[in-house]
């Protein structure tokens, strides 16, 4: 990939500091990994409003709920697997059910965590968080969008989940892009098929569209940063105008963006669909790029899915 790259978690750390300066009500919790989640920047500038909860993640979610119930806007950070997968019951009863103002911003999403292996690959998180009734779920496509998503979380009441990545990821937006919560973004127009992508797969989808253009397939690319609530209108429009949809995500087949888009397409505008995802399996240790290839999450894989879905039109 030839695009410039930047770290979503570094952007998160810097954005939190900005927000902390504007809003004295913002409190941040972390579970011993602030040098990795970059909440360390906030901790340095606002030590009184930062609590290292140690390795007590379930407790940390409850503490966040108590702070939020007392009027604070609470950001909670650690790796995705340790807060979403480990703490699902706490997310459910302490945040989702009572609709408390807690923002779970977790890093190390997906398999691009890489060498740490399957224990650290967060590939069930979108299914889990999208299942929580009052949650808003956002996966930024790049560092620019990450900043917008974090600011949106701070200014919109209620529980949020934002998934960030470990490695630097390609920049897909121009400087000055304004993130709008709940809105899909058409990254590239096209009439033969639409790829709806999220997170790091947006860059892959754009690369795929370039390849497809050389094969005379005019492919639309939509970034769907907000998985919940979903921009149904954008999906229906894409289905109507291009007649075929491919959904690409760094997640298991079940319960993520693919399932959510399919529900809308089935109900409102049935068209052929294909899915680019991890399927129903855990990955192994390896470099991020190696894993994306091994598990079928490259631009090439998107190209194949688009070619196949177009044939079914």
């Amino acid at each position: 990939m030839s695009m410039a790259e930047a770290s979503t978690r570094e952007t998160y750390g810097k954005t939190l500091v900005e927000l902390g300066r504007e809003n004295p009500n913002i409190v941040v919790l972390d579970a011993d990994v602030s040098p990795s989640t970059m909440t360390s920047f906030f901790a340095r500038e606002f030590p009184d409003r930062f609590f290292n909860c140690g390795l007590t993640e379930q407790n940390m979610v409850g503490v966040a709920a108590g702070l939020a119930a007392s009027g604070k806007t609470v950001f909670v950070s650690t790796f995705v697997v340790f807060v979403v997968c480990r703490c699902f019951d706490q997310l459910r009863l302490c945040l989702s059910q009572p609709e408390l103002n807690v923002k779970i911003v977790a890093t190390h999403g997906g398999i691009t965590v890489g060498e740490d292996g399957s224990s650290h690959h967060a590939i069930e998180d979108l299914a889990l968080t999208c299942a929580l009734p009052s949650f808003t779920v956002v996966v930024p496509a790049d560092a620019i969008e990450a900043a917008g998503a974090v600011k949106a979380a701070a200014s919109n009441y209620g529980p949020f989940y934002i998934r960030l990545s470990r490695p630097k990821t390609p920049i897909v937006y121009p400087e000055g892009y304004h993130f709008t919560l709940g809105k899909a973004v058409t990254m590239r127009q096209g009439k033969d098929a639409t790829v709806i992508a999220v997170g790091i797969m947006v860059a892959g989808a754009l690369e795929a569209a370039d390849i497809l253009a050389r094969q005379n397939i005019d492919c639309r690319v939509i970034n769907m940063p907000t998985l919940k609530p979903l921009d149904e209108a954008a999906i229906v429009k894409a289905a109507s105008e291009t007649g075929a949809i491919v959904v690409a995500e760094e997640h298991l087949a079940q319960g993520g963006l693919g399932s959510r888009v399919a529900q809308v397409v089935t109900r409102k505008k049935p068209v052929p669909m294909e899915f680019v995802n991890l399927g129903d399996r855990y990955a192994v240790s390896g470099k991020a790029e190696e894993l994306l290839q091994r598990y079928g999450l490259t631009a090439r894989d998107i190209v194949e899915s688009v070619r196949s879905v177009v044939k079914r039109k």
Partner: protein
Amino acid sequence: MPNHSEVSLGSASPGNNFNLSIAELKEMAKKLRRHVITMTATAGSGHPGGSLSAADIITAFYFKVLRHDPENPRWPDRDRFILSKGHAAPILYAALAEAGYFPVAELATLRKLDSRLQGHTDRKLTPGVEMSAGSLGMGLSFAIGVALAARLDFKTYRTYVLLSDGECEEGQTWEAALSAAHFKLDNLTTIVDCNGMQLSGWTRDIMNLEPFTRKWQAFGWHTLDIDGHDFKQILSACQRAEKIKGQPTAIIARTIKGKGISFMENNVAFHGKAPTWEEAERALKELE
């Protein structure tokens, strides 16, 4: 059992207009127990055993210890009472109703469709309920957040959280116990309703918690062992806890599951089963 009777009971906290005497507290506890029996019998389900063991503790808090305002349930300076053992919702509802948070008549709607009184507590629905509960082991963590917020905002309210002994089998309780001591939360008091029983039997047989008080001490807490059915001991323990600085206090309250009704006391069958109407009538007679 240590003797706390040398501590003067004093007047109620400022903000609590109830200020009942010990004799009045005993009468109120009896009234709340009657509500628990009637409510669960009417609902046909619920958890009378753990509600009755907590009846005296909850009566002491709502009618003496807490600074609270039933007219203004979210008064920012109120003392917080968090029920972590959410299955004891009936006794909390009874206290809230008698204190004036909602009409006593509403108690009859417990667990019914569209009632504000859910099977387990719901922060969004019930005036005076601080937190949704029912999945055990979560309340102490929530209370830590509330106590930290008081510190951040320079507020003097105190945070109390009622646990069951059974829920101390949950690992999260001990994560929270570590944290509260680490953060030196002396504005936080935990009361453990140690009735010694859980759903299927005695805690000592199912997952032994003893030596229980020593565990809290080892986690960095000041501890007070009391008889959880003795109002003098409950009230003086709360006063003592307020004076302990630099660490949180755990009041280990030894209680009897089903307390007050002969055939429910230490009877595990009434953990999660409502009395029949015939049993309820017998129980209410004992509570006259």
